[in-house]
């Protein structure tokens, strides 16, 4: 590994705080350890989860076997919203605390958020066609999730359009924080408006309204998705750090040759 060849600086007392992780070399060393662990957790839990979904979990009394789509649709929706919330926190890290890795974290998160939101939208449509009789309705939940997907796409386009990294980071941070207004709308749209999409049945006051025989496979699949998301995010951040090093060294090489 060329990226972690130089020894990371000693960790200050207090352990691996966010400030300690401001050093990219130290972050790369930590990522090197965490990526295989998270990948392993994702593979093991996805295997167990898929076994439970297809061999153990019962069919729903109304939806029949189509309920199996829920086991990928709901975790993807949770990751889609969670990723954007983390991006908003990273945006604060860029604008307020000027953490050196905050915009790296944000930039690496956007394509993953877009991918999980797309999974949520498409699996939802594939569930909706046999259950609702339609692929799509313009109700508040579906529309706000579509807006979330467009926000992710807009942020990816913004980073691609602005060459200067620090300017791109500030612009993306501001746009991310403005777009965060959509997250409560996604979450509470089913409570605030009369939607075709059903209200929350897992994360709700009074506890989950879903039988444990379906809840456990769902939670296991959700943790598998989360572990894969963390592994891919760490890989994305590592790639972005390496890309910036390549750019810096490339510019220095060009100056020396001039």
């Amino acid at each position: 590994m060329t990226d972690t060849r130089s020894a990371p600086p000693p960790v200050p007392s207090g352990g691996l705080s966010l400030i300690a992780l401001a050093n990219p070399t130290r972050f790369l060393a930590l990522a090197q350890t965490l990526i295989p662990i998270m990948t392993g957790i994702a593979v093991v839990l996805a295997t167990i989860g898929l076994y439970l979904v297809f061999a153990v979990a019962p069919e729903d009394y109304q939806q029949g076997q189509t309920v199996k789509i829920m086991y990928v649709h709901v975790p993807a929706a949770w990751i889609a919203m969670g990723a954007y919330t983390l991006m908003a926190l990273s945006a604060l890290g860029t604008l307020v605390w000027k953490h050196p890795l905050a915009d790296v974290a944000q930039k690496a998160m956007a394509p993953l958020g877009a991918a999980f939101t797309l999974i949520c939208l498409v699996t939802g449509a594939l569930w909706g066609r046999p259950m609702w009789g339609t692929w799509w309705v313009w109700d508040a939940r579906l529309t706000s999730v579509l807006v979330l997907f467009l926000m992710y796409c807009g942020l990816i386009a913004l980073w691609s359009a602005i060459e200067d990294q620090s300017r791109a980071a500030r612009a993306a941070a501001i746009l991310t924080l403005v777009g965060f207004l959509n997250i409560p709308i996604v979450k509470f749209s089913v409570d605030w408006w009369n939607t075709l999409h059903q209200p929350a049945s897992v994360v709700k006051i009074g506890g989950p309204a879903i039988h444990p025989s379906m809840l456990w496979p769902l939670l296991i699949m959700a943790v598998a998705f989360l572990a894969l998301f963390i592994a891919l995010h760490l890989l994305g951040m590592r790639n972005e750090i390496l890309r910036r090093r390549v750019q810096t060294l490339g510019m220095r090489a060009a100056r020396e040759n001039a």
Partner: protein
Amino acid sequence: MAALLGEHWGFIVAAYGFVVLILGTVIAITWIDGAQQKRALAELEARGIRRRSEQAS
């Protein structure tokens, strides 16, 4: 398949297939991007262009 997954089996297979397609694509793109960056960094280092912290050590 219909006996196992019911009359809407095609929708279930399509949903799981789409998940595999998208996540597989994301994993592949991330993997390829990482390999490209490592190769570019190695080429620069082979030309003697290193980060200042590595030159000092």
